[in-house]
């Protein structure tokens, strides 16, 4: 063994094992919407996971450029979005709303733009709080600029500076829930998704992703602590959501997309290990596993996210949601009004139903959850793995190993077991094209060793190392 390999092995052993060794929620019947063992209370009094579900509205600009000439229009759009949504929330007797500002490139690259938007929206939130008692908060989600450099310099890029500036000053401007959809490992996973290369997905998420999450979330948590804000969470959008969308477009098998979601948990959980308290973000749909393992509240999206992408998870995604979201909708005019206002209404009616069930009692809550689950569970393997009893099974597998790599593998293997059991029972039906992948995926997963250093050693020669920089991951 050469010296660099020995050094690599030493460095790898310095990575701490996964913190969570036991589930916080062990009983599927306790994995329920609106209730999290560790609720989060916000500045204006939202108790997320504390007994009711709130709407989380996500939005974006309509077709337009962002430059100095259009900035007044950009600000006008965000003002209109916040005012329209909160006005409708008051009219619908909403108990509270989260507005997610997921910034676009220009708003992060020039943090002042993002900060100004937060200020505008926070002013409106405060105004509605004072005048109407409506509780609302802003989730500030800067986009991860680092992927603009290829290969990305995850740790040394100058692009980290504006991202962190936006976190810091945006938090001070009223962005109370800090989140991101970070992209560590995406350089490797994009091609692996298209090739259905499960071992490379495990490498991207449980080796590269985990390291990048640890690096980034130390910084985000420090910003949150310094400014008295809430470190929310980091969803695997560029991995699990991308896989689902590709499966929806029939590019890759649905069984593969289901496994990518499970594997992404070991990467997303690092935010919580670094001190994030939730609410976890929505679009990777891995939040239910995070909730079972850590007990933090989560945001989920389902049928109300059809404005952004199609999915097979419309109802079942709500089964354990603490915030109910719509992924993203453009600020365009629909017959009823502006699209974000329309989507706020849709979200509100969904959460009103869930909250009514919670008020009515355990039995009613479980009946509603059962209907949400049963209406989707056997329509798609991705839905199947989100059913509470399966979430608990998979979550147990996701924590039983000593390393992130082993846990990613174990979780994915458990998911395959669940899919195969459902196939054997005849409840889940999949084409031969889909089922043909299952034994191949199982074999590939079984070939992954427990020890991370052994896994890295076998994977590195097979990867195109011009696409990522090992040292940028501390390797």
């Amino acid at each position, binding site marked *: 063994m050469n010296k660099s390999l020995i050094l690599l092995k030493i460095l790898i052993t310095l990575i701490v094992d996964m913190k969570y060794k036991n589930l916080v929620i062990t009983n599927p019947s306790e994995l329920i919407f609106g209730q999290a063992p560790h609720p989060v209370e916000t500045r204006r009094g939202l108790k997320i996971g504390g007994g009711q579900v709130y709407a989380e509205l996500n939005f974006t*600009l309509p077709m337009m450029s962002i430059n100095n000439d259009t900035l007044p229009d950009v600000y006008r759009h965000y003002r209109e979005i916040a005012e329209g949504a909160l006005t409708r929330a008051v009219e619908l007797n909403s108990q509270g709303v989260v507005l997610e500002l997921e910034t676009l490139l220009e708003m992060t690259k020039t943090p002042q733009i993002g900060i100004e938007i937060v200020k505008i929206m926070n002013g409106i939130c405060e105004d509605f709080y004072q005048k109407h008692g409506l509780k609302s908060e802003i989730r500030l989600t800067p986009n991860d600029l680092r992927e603009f450099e290829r290969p990305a310099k995850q740790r040394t890029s100058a692009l980290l500076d504006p991202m962190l500036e936006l976190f810091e000053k945006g938090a001070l401007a009223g962005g109370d829930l800090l989140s991101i959809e970070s992209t560590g490992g995406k350089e490797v996973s994009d091609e692996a998704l298209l090739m259905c290369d499960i071992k490379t997905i495990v490498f991207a998420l449980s080796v590269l992703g985990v390291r990048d999450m640890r690096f980034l979330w130390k910084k985000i948590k420090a910003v949150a602590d310094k400014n008295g804000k809430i470190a929310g969470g980091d969803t695997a959008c560029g991995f699990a959501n991308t896989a689902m969308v590709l499966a929806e477009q029939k590019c890759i098998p649905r069984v593969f997309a289901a496994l990518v979601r499970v594997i992404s948990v070991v990467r997303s959980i690092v935010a919580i290990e670094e001190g994030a308290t939730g609410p976890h973000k929505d679009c990777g749909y891995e939040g239910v596993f995070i909730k079972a393992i850590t007990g933090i509240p989560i945001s989920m999206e389902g049928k109300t996210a059809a404005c952004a992408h199609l999915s097979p998870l419309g109802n079942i995604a709500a089964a354990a949601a603490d915030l109910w979201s719509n992924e993203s909708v453009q600020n365009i005019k629909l017959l009823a009004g502006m699209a974000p206002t329309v989507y706020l209404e849709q979200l509100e009616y969904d959460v009103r139903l869930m909250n009514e069930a919670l008020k009515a009692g355990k039995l009613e809550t479980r009946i509603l959850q059962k209907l949400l689950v049963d209406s989707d569970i056997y329509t798609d393997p991705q839905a199947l793995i989100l059913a509470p009893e399966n979430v608990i099974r998979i979550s147990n597998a996701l924590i039983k190993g000593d390393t992130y790599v082993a846990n990613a593998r174990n979780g994915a293997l458990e998911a395959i077991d669940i899919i195969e059991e459902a196939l054997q029972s005849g409840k889940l039906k999949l084409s031969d094209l889909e089922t043909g992948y299952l034994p191949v995926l199982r074999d590939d997963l079984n070939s992954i060793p427990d020890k991370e250093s052994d896994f890295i050693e076998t994977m590195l020669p097979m990867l195109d190392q011009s696409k990522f920089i090992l040292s940028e991951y501390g390797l």
Partner: protein
Amino acid sequence: MSNLIEEIALCVESGKVNAASPYPPNMKGQPGSDELTKQALEEGVSPDDILNKSLVVAMNKVGQQYSENKIFVPQMLLAAKAMAASMQHLKPFFQSGEVKRKGTFIMGTVFGDLHDIGKNLCCMMIEGAGWEVIDLGVDVQAEKFINELNKHPNAVVGLSALLTTTMVNMGVIISSIREKYPKAKVAVGGAPVNLDFAKQINADQYGKNPQELIGWLDKIAV
């Protein structure tokens, strides 16, 4: 001779790159498109026949199977890899002009945008359909497209975008291209793009999916 043409086509269709490649399992140990193309050229098979009667035919079949949801993208990518292995042997004939492709297609994701999964799929399928593809990557400014057009003045340009705030950059790029190359053909595609928008920015074609785009390219190549 015709057997070799068919065997190469089978390798491409099956994603069999070379004798060492493990996929597909039922062809383990057998020569792949790499070895068979070399052999065919040594035996005097015309490189033009290899390209048009073997590789393009096989990739068309693969594209058709994909359109009919009979295979997923990984199978298509493996086929593309097998085709690329053959193309390595044909390279000298392209350079000498002995073999010609249908045309050149320059593609990139517009500036401000990093989404490239759709673009990569398009590039792969268009190459498989017999076009030379120049992939400029992501976050591409107008100048880069023009620089490439300077080298390939008859090339067709493809622009991809996935955001409502970057799709507008397609119009900017098309205007810049047309200033220097008024007759340049440009196709656009991506999640927020539609036919109306394509018309609005004077694009020649809206590609709803790679297959539609290939159909249009093949028409204008004639």
